[in-house]
């Protein structure tokens, strides 16, 4: 009980400190914090569904872009909080429809479908803008500062990780682990696999949509090739994998260093950025497919085992 209270106080304190950070930085620092928090949220939300079920989704940018576009379309007609609600609702509806249609697909077919979905939505939006509205891009003029965007993202990140924590200790969390291990067993112990997957996919997609919506005012100008850029899906995926998609803090631990690294790379090697990015992807998948956290844990347990093996020998000698 005391431990739980201490944990709550610790996290509240950490959150307050993070919220206070922007006052110490200039515009560039705030931009950096904002982007980083955005990716922490994206990777954590992605891992909510894809971590335990091992369904690798490349649809991240589809939902991210839907969020951003909803804001772009509605920015002059509705008050801001209402726009966010509409964006979340649109994301949720698309996720439910897509989920119902695709969660039967397994393995690589699901990956390909989600990638195709992101491209399809991008092409549809482009087609609509070119043929119906007549202009490809849209402007977003909302009086929202970088700090305010950062705070919103920070809150969303906290909610996402909190949700991950709660799921991990709930029945639905156990259901996800069972499904990830063996779907046949899952069904035979009475788990409604389709419903669990759909619920998690919908929650994950809604959070991703909100990240896109919250970040939209930052760009001022949006067009499909910016907000539906597939690199966003790949970055999210690789961040979650680097940290460990099955751990609560894994995506965060992957997102922070990778985001900073990518920032540094794009500033210093603008011409070779994509090449280095590709090499990094390959390296991560090869060297630590289970993520950094799993690797550290394995290292720890090895050290622990050595310690335990040493102990009985010692007690025997004492006897």
């Amino acid at each position, binding site marked *: 009980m005391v431990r739980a209270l201490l944990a709550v106080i610790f996290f509240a304190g950490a959150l307050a400190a993070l919220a206070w950070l922007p006052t110490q930085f200039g515009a560039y620092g705030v931009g950096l914090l904002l982007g980083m928090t955005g990716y922490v949220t994206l990777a954590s939300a992605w891992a909510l569904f894809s971590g335990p079920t091992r369904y690798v989704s490349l649809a991240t940018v589809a939902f991210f872009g839907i969020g951003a576009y909803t804001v772009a379309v509605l920015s002059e007609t509705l008050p801001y909080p209402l726009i966010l609600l509409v964006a979340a609702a649109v994301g949720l509806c698309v996720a439910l429809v897509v989920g119902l249609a695709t969660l039967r697909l397994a393995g690589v077919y699901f990956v390909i479908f989600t990638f195709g979905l992101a491209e399809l939505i991008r092409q549809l939006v482009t087609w609509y803008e070119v043929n119906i509205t007549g202009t490809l891009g849209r402007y977003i003029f909302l009086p929202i500062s970088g700090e305010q965007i950062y705070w919103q993202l920070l809150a969303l990140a906290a909610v996402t990780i909190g949700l991950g924590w709660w799921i991990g200790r709930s029945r639905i969390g156990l259901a996800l*682990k069972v499904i990830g*291990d063996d779907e046949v067993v899952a069904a035979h112990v009475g788990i409604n696999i389709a419903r669990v997957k759909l619920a998690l996919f919908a929650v994950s997609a809604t959070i991703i949509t909100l990240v896109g919506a919250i970040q939209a005012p930052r760009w001022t100008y949006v067009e499909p090739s910016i907000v539906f850029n597939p690199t966003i899906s790949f970055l999210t995926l690789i961040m979650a994998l680097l940290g460990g998609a099955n751990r609560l803090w894994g995506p965060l631990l992957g997102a922070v260093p990778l985001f900073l690294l990518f920032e540094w790379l794009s500033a210093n090697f603008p011409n070779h950025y994509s090449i280095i990015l590709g090499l990094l992807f390959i390296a991560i998948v090869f060297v630590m497919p289970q993520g950094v956290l799993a690797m550290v844990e394995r290292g720890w347990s090895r050290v622990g085992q050595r310690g335990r093996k040493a102990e009985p020998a010692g007690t025997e000698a004492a006897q």
Partner: protein
Amino acid sequence: MTALIEITGLRKQFGGLTAVDDVSFVVAEGEIVALLGPNGSGKTTVLNMISGALAPTSGAIRLAGEEIAGLGPHRIAHKGVARTFQLVRILPSLTVGENVMAALAFRHPPVWGGAAEARVETLLEEIGLGGRGAERADNLTYIDQKRMELARALAAEPRLLLLDEWLSGLNPTELQVGIELILSLRRSGMTVLLVEHIMEAVRALCSRAVVMNAGRTIADGPTEAVLADADVIRAYLGEDHA
């Protein structure tokens, strides 16, 4: 005795192959019935249709009078059917306790939290895995994995338990323990339908046996009589022995 499970005219076709052809039999409440037959005779397919892993091509499966043929496995599980698998299926990345917990948490009505943890411990105790709930399931030996799988099936407190060659692969001592375990289930009033090749176990456990060959039932009656039946011996051992 009232019928718990009633199978009539059950058929399963895989393309041009008829794996199960017009199978009918009844298992009464509280009975332990063996489903026998040579390899490939369709026993596991019948079990798969009862548990919902496969949908029948035609025919009826009634559980306590209620039609369950073609329902999904999770819905049939909720109606009180639990099973083990021919090739033992564990949840390798979960602990032994979580493997059993999975069945408690998703049965109807669910058991969760402290009550579930206590129940897991009791079940593991009963099955001979007491105090080992924290171990990883994939570190268990084969017999212990089978034990855990049975504990998971029992956690659902099923009305009908389906055992698919649960006793195979055990050494003689383990076999005696296994038979004793299943007998204790009968004493608790559970109904069991088991597929088994070990005749010693079948004789010890089952009052009645249903024999299949090439997708059809060729015998159905008291175990001793069925095992002495000429058709059954022919199916198992060939023409010369009949």
